[in-house]
């Protein structure tokens, strides 16, 4: 009898121990994972819900207004929204075509031809990545403005024109400025596509005695079609989202697009949050369609064995003496597209007041602007704000990405694919819409976030999680499952295993993602423009407000300093990723 009791209690002990350890596993691991999932959902879905709620109410955020459809009637009843939609879409399409043609041409030159100085060309094309968009946009005003534009002045004197041939303050000016600034992205994507194309496919076509034009159409174009489409769609989404060119050029020229319409609706007095929100719904619809198409195309692209996987050495086409012609054309493109905008900013940064480049003015060159920048309190404050928000946002985004990637790759928790998708949705959120959504949320919710750096950090984290997630996901896929299982056999602490086994192994990837996000926070204007206040501005915002108040030469000096800073960080990123052979987020 006692024996039976002993067995029974023994069993009881075992059972308790078992349940205890089961629950211990549940609290730690699942608790951490649940928090991560909740944070991601909170960051991405809640603001969107708030904006939608706002479009259906009749008062500004936090006023407890009543429900109405009036905003929709107002917004969609006026031709403005359709004009903005038309402008946004045609702007994105046309500038995307310019970027694609130039980027693709440069990729072809460096990957497929024997044009000399390919290394120089390659580096030159990467430069626009380092320059904040607000600075490039302003530099094109220096080049193409009817009054002060350098190219206009030169053309006038060369050809004896009596009026300037170009006017930056036009739709064409806006398209050109954005298009020429975005050649790096299509260049990198198309260069990768050229590199991943199996040369034997072309050789097979040559053997079958196809004409070169037919071969190009039948083989090259068809094989590369998915990557071409994906590149174009990505450019379209970027174009739709962008704020700099529409703000600097479009607003004075009276060309409304979604980004600027929302911006103006919030700058007007009284601030019309509801209308801005309603504009955002149409804006969002277009970007979401763009991103969905992009995802669809890239999924198709993955099916083409030529796009993923192994890298080939593409067959180099011998251009003969033509290669010098190609070199001249390439240099001309890079001179206009990369060198001129940078040079004019650099020139202006040394001028006591803005003036055309000339020998006379060169003698007046001065460091005064740089001195002024370094004496400016706002500069230090903005740089500090930028650094604090950038570093925090990059750290939080990367840590969240580790959690998300771990859930997606290592667990079979139901809904993990959904989490992946939710974390990816901000890619379709234009910066202005995201900012508006956050404004709405934190004007309603009584948390001390509005008007602080926190709102910027939250916005940056939300917007850049998709980027860090892609880098972290790719790195984590390379960590063999058994490495983690061996750790699981050693220690029951999930966090200890994660941070002593997995994190060190993917550290290079984490660093690359971290640095990349940091540089983005120093470049992007569309997010902080609505969220920064006096005291919480970041560098791109400071540059924009200097531009608006006419501090042009000082702005240029600040832009040069900022670009050098970004270049150093980017150089570091490249060094790490080259050393550990990791592909960056783009």
């Amino acid at each position, binding site marked *: 009898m006692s024996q039976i009791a002993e067995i029974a209690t023994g*069993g009881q002990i*075992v*059972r308790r*121990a*078992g*349940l205890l*350890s*089961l629950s*211990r*596993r549940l609290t730690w691991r699942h608790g951490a994972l649940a928090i991560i999932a909740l944070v991601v959902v909170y960051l991405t879905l809640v603001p969107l819900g708030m904006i939608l709620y706002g479009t259906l109410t009749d008062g500004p955020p936090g006023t407890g207004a009543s429900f109405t459809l009036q905003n929709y009637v107002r917004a969609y009843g006026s031709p403005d929204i359709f004009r903005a939609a038309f402008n946004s879409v045609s702007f994105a399409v046309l500038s995307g075509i310019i970027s694609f043609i130039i980027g693709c041409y440069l990729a072809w030159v460096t990957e497929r031809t024997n044009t000399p100085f390919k290394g120089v060309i390659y580096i030159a094309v990467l430069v626009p990545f380092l320059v904040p968009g607000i600075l490039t946009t302003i530099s094109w005003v220096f080049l193409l403005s009817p009054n002060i534009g350098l190219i206009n002045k030169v053309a006038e004197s060369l050809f004896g024109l009596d009026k300037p041939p170009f006017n930056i303050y036009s739709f064409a000016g806006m398209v050109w400025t954005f298009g020429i600034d975005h050649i790096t992205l299509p260049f990198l994507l198309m260069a990768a596509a050229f590199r991943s194309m199996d040369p034997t496919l072309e050789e097979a076509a040559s053997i079958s005695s196809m004409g070169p034009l037919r071969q190009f159409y039948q083989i090259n174009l068809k094989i590369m079609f998915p990557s071409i489409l994906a590149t174009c769609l990505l450019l379209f989404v970027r174009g739709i989202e962008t704020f700099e060119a529409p703000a600097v050029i479009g607003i004075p020229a009276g060309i409304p697009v979604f980004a600027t319409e929302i911006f103006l609706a919030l700058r007007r007095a009284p601030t019309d949050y509801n209308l801005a929100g309603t504009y955002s719904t149409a804006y969002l619809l277009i970007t979401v369609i763009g991103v969905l198409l992009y995802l669809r195309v890239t999924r198709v692209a993955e099916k083409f064995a030529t796009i993923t996987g192994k890298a080939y050495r593409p067959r180099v086409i011998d251009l003969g003496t033509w290669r010098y012609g190609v070199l001249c054309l390439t240099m001309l493109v890079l001179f206009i597209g990369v060198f001129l905008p940078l040079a004019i900013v650099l020139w202006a940064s040394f001028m006591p007041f803005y003036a055309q480049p000339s020998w006379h003015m060169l003698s007046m060159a001065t460091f005064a602007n740089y001195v002024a920048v370094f004496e400016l309190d706002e500069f230090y404050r903005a740089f500090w704000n930028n650094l604090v928000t950038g570093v925090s946002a990059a750290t939080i985004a990367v840590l969240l990405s580790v959690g998300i990637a771990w859930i997606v790759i290592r667990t079979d928790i139901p809904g993990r694919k959904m989490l992946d998708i939710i974390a990816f949705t901000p890619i379709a959120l234009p910066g202005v819409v995201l900012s508006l959504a956050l404004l709405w949320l934190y004007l309603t919710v009584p948390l001390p976030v509005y008007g602080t750096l926190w709102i910027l950090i939250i916005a940056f984290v939300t917007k850049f999680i998709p980027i860090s997630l892609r880098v972290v996901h790719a790195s984590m896929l390379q960590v*063999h499952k*058994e*490495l983690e*299982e*061996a*750790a*699981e*056999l*050693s*220690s*029951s*602490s999930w966090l*200890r295993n994660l941070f*002593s*086994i997995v994190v*060190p*192994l993917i550290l290079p990837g984490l660093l690359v993602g971290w640095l990349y996000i940091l540089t983005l926070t120093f470049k992007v204007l569309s997010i902080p423009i609505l969220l920064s206040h006096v005291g919480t501005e970041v560098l791109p915002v400071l540059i924009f407000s200097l531009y608006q108040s006419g501090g042009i030469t000082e702005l240029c000096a600040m832009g040069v300093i900022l670009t050098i800073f970004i270049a150093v960080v980017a150089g570091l990123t490249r060094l790490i990723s080259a050393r550990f052979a990791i592909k960056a987020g783009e």
Partner: protein
Amino acid sequence: MISVQGLAKTYAGGNVRAIDGVDFQVETGKIFTLLGPSGCGKTTSLRSVAGLEQPDAGEINLFGETVFSSTRGISLHPSKRKIGMVFQSYAIWPHMTVLQNIAYPLKGKGLSRAQIESKAREALRMVDLEGFEDRPAPKLSGGQQQRVALARAIASDPRIFLFDEPLSNLDAKLREEMRGHIRALQRKLGITSLYVTHDQVEALSISDFIAVMEKGKIVEVGAPRDIYLHPTSRFAAQFVGLTNIMPAKLRHGDAGDTVRVDLPFTSLLCQGLTTKAHSKGDSLMVLLRPENVRVSSSSFNCETNEWRGRVISSIFLGEFIDCTIACGDFQVRARVNPFHQFEDGAEVYLHIAPERFSLLTA
């Protein structure tokens, strides 16, 4: 002692049965091998014992302690099961040195730094890797990495060893060497071990007992010698080594423990096999291992178990000649001493000793 009862697990929402009612016991100090083709559930069974997978049903006991029970809701964390495991990929952490790899499982167990180091060094000594302490793990050869994995498994004084195809990433020569190493170490430490492999030679050479698995079930358990010489299932007979399987009918009439069976092309006398469960005329299967079939161009002059055939092909493989011989409508594979030589189409005599084959119920 490891005791596994009624283990079952399904994948893909219940559509794929990975393991389907697996029972086995490993006696203390023995090596028990789960042998089978890929997808037979051997790895899932092992990983369930380790706690890396959660079975849907069943119970696992290690030395009397229940570490998993679906009915009682017990599932001990892998690290609490006191297990040493060697993985197929070695799973050596590449960002650590050899010593750090071995020391990791020892940390957080209330040992002092010095104790941890001395235990780790002791484990390294046991796998003959002294002097490699500070080597970065990726700077080791495959065989050395495998030994580090072994040392890491030993270091924390596990109750049992689990081996998940530990040799499949090594080349043939090294595999043989490591096989001996693992066997010797296991013997020396006397640690109860569960071993998973798809390689029959590995299983036969290393195990005390082998369980042959097919489609999520154990089809046969036995000592290596029994599994090979007297398999009791058609699957085990075919999976472990090459075998000729011939249909036969039982003919009673011989005295003692010998029986006679009729094959389509000859009749054979069997010795040492019990056929008590069968009666005259029952259908059986005769299993002939190719190395037990003797082939000659002249008669063996045996009264029994000799028949004739015609050579279809003979392939010289160095160690032996792989002969395929037509006997009536059937083909018999035989392994012949390499000094023999047969022309294709030649008439040959075949012979098998009465005790060197086995019978199966059809």
